[in-house]
């Protein structure tokens, strides 16, 4: 199908983009990579009055270091994330999860910020951002503000972004020390969305697990942290038994949906299995 008609704006700077968003009327959609937006527009599930295409806002692309953080421009494509040397060095979990997103054509167009702002519960990157305690830098008419990942994901397809605002960059704290990471994704066929996935970052110290951060994909309307498992792992021995025991708590506090791909109770089972695998791999077992 063909999308409904819309007004089209193509700014080249963040300021121009904010202005175009402000002038766009009641229903404005921001076009980042378009790999989620264009499909829903084609199905006319979305029919915005104005589309603000930010693909030519060059300042939103690229990865840089800023002290203890990596700063990933919202318009950095998945392809560029996968091949970026700074991400490989300081946040390989981001690259590993991004490699599992969709397919190579989609990864050339789709963007890191676009996927996060879309906030699909089955999307892979929100759980990674949450696990890594990323911060979201949002530009608006009144200036910029920073929102922690824990507050950014509000509900199904809903984030802390207000009308008139634009996600400009994501700050990911650099992980230094003995961190291991793993993204374990379960889906049935190529390019399919996650039925459940688990992002784990584990810091080891003297044969035990000092700290574990675990983000869960598709276990509720927003990405979640497996807090009970994290608590059980803090200070635990880095043994298969200790990890398996902690992983059995991975479904605590989750509220997965039932859909064509899986029933809720199956997802609750899956998340325990995948958490065990992800944490084991991240801990080097």
């Amino acid at each position: 199908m063909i999308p409904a008609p819309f007004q089209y704006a193509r700014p080249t700077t963040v300021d121009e983009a904010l202005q175009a968003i402000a002038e766009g009327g009641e229903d404005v959609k921001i076009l980042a990579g378009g790999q989620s937006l264009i499909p829903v527009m084609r199905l006319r599930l979305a029919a915005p009055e104005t589309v603000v295409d930010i693909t030519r806002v060059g300042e939103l692309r690229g990865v840089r270091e800023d002290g203890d953080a990596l700063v990933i421009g919202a318009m950095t494509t998945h392809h560029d994330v996968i091949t970026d040397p700074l991400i490989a060095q300081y946040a390989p979990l981001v690259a590993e999860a991004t490699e599992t997103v969709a397919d190579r054509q989609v990864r050339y167009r789709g963007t890191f910020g676009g996927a996060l702002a879309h906030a699909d519960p089955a999307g892979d990157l929100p759980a990674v951002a949450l696990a890594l305690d990323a911060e979201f830098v949002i530009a608006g008419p009144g200036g910029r503000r920073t929102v922690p990942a824990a507050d950014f994901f509000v509900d199904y397809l809903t984030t802390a972004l207000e009308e008139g605002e634009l996600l400009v960059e994501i700050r990911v704290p650099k992980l230094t020390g003995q961190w291991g990471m793993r993204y374990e994704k379960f889906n049935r066929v190529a390019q399919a969305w996650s039925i459940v996935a688990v992002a784990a970052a584990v810091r080891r110290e003297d044969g035990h697990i000092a700290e574990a951060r675990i983000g869960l994909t598709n276990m509720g309307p927003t990405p979640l942290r497996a807090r009970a498992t994290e608590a059980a792992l803090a200070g635990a021995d880095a043994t298969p038994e200790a990890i398996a025991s902690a992983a059995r708590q991975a479904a605590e506090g989750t509220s997965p949906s039932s859909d064509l791909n899986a029933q809720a109770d199956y997802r609750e089972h899956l998340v325990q299995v995948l958490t065990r695998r992800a944490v084991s791999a991240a801990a080097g077992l």
Partner: protein
Amino acid sequence: MTSINVRVDGMSYSDDVEPRTLLVHYLREQLGKVGTVVGCDTSNCGACTVHLDGQAVKSCTVFAVQADGSEVTTIEGIAEEGRDGALHPVQKAFHEMHGLQCGYCTPGMIMASIDLLRENPNPSETEIREGIEGNLCRCTGYQNIVRAVQQAAGEMSGADTLGAQA
């Protein structure tokens, strides 16, 4: 309407398009480039894959206005690269290895495969399967598609040493 300037398969075009026009519809309906086909309505099948500034994209998931100022290569524009009128090595390999049954997915498979081989000239079988995961063959003829990509990889790396193929 928005005016765009775009190069497609080596020719320059200036056209007015509605912003909602998908790149694939512009290519097929305004330029007559019907070699690029629409296989699904969901961005899954990859049959409409073209190269936009050298990168494989699903042309049903890009607006034509987004190609303004860009270079587009379709299945119709690859044979001329390098040797005059000859099939591209990937086209030739799909022909020789029977890498198609009904042929509907073939334009997209070839465009995705060329993109894969540009980045990874000697892919393993697994890398080929992952590299073309964005393209569906509903005849399920994947075995020969993979063999075709393997043959093309061999031929292209050989051709590269002779300086004959880009």
